């Protein structure tokens, strides 16, 4: 599983993950509460974009981030332009785009492990209502481990069909499900054998 994280040593890379998430949440709040006009929206977009080079990310990364949002801008902006007004189109689309760019910035500068750790801390109070944050962190890591295994099963089933010269189409999901569920049972045993889930 390839994470979206890009290694680096910039200021955002060094900032604690929790602080970044907090700032992101505050910015989201600010962006949705502040009454922005067209100029303000453009200003916000410029500031957010400028954070990319500040964080030590390449111009290319910034370009990619914008490019990924092209359909959203086109469709959302277009619809608002036609249905409501050009000003609304710029302001509302701009808000969403600025927020998405900020979120991507956090994602790109923070390791999966650190975010898992933050998640575990955020969930810690749930311990009192009987939810174990360690189990949740474990479930997430376990899933990350299983993703390549399950996609390996999908490849095996594909090969098995070709080896017999058949194309099952959606029916191929059946052997995939059988492999998956059987694997789940084995993993369950392995967890117990390591003293987890007692």
């Amino acid at each position, binding site marked *: 599983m390839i994470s979206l994280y890009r290694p680096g040593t910039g200021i955002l890379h060094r900032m604690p993950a929790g602080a970044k998430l907090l700032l992101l949440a505050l910015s989201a709040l600010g962006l949705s509460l502040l009454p922005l006009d067209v100029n303000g929206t453009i200003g916000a977009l410029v500031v957010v974009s400028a954070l990319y080079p500040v964080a030590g990310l390449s111009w290319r990364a910034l370009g990619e981030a914008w490019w990924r949002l092209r359909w959203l801008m086109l469709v959302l902006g277009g619809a608002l332009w036609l249905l409501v007004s050009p000003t609304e189109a710029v302001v509302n689309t701009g808000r969403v785009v600025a927020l998405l760019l900020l979120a991507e910035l956090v994602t790109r500068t923070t390791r999966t492990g650190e975010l898992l750790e933050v998640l575990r801390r955020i969930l810690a109070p749930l311990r009192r209502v009987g939810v174990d944050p360690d189990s949740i962190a474990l479930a997430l890591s376990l899933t990350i481990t299983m993703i390549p295994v399950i996609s390996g*099963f999908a490849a*095996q*089933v594909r*090969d*098995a*069909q*070709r*080896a*017999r*010269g*058949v194309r*099952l189409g959606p029916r*191929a999901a*059946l*052997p995939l499900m*059988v*492999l998956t569920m*059987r694997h789940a049972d084995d993993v369950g045993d392995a967890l117990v054998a390591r003293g987890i889930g007692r």
Partner: protein
Amino acid sequence: MDVDGRSILRDVTLTLCAPRCAVIGANGSGKSTFARLLNGLRTPSGGRLRVLGRDPQGGASGPRVGFVFTNPEAQILMPTPLEDVELSLRHLPRGERRERAREVLAAHGLAGLEDVPASTLSGGQRQLLAIASVLATAPDLVVADEPTTLLDLRNARRVGDLLLGLDVPLILLTHDLELAARCDEAVLFEDGTVRAVGGAATVIDEYRRSCA
């Protein structure tokens, strides 16, 4: 042959013509990758490959290569043994299919298990079913990738006898050197390339020496 930019097999120049050929070598040496080339599951990134004189990528005009995988689980595509063999017999008219599938199962010692959930078969029975389903496609060549691991003495012998007794050519990938010794010819892979090829006994000796 490159996968994900890594070169997995290189400089493999090889002509196999014995009816039964063993492929041996360490974990990760490229045996399975080689086998997948033979039946067109992978495409070579260069060079020329002919199986029984034809191109394995050739589709309908290509050779029919039956492939037995290590893990029978991934090979059983239908809920019950009968349906699984029937899947290999789709070229037959519907009426005949069921009849014929029953015969195939019986011939592989699986009579009476036609309609049980395939997942409740024992390891040996599952491997036999996988082989039965592959042979039911009437292949021109059979490639088997470690078909006897996970099997007990009797089942391993049974599966070994079955494969070695086929009247189509067989390519057998295995870590079981006794089984390999029963083939006519052997190829030893090492680090993605052919280290030795020749009579089975000689090549197996070479492999044993290289591990000592």
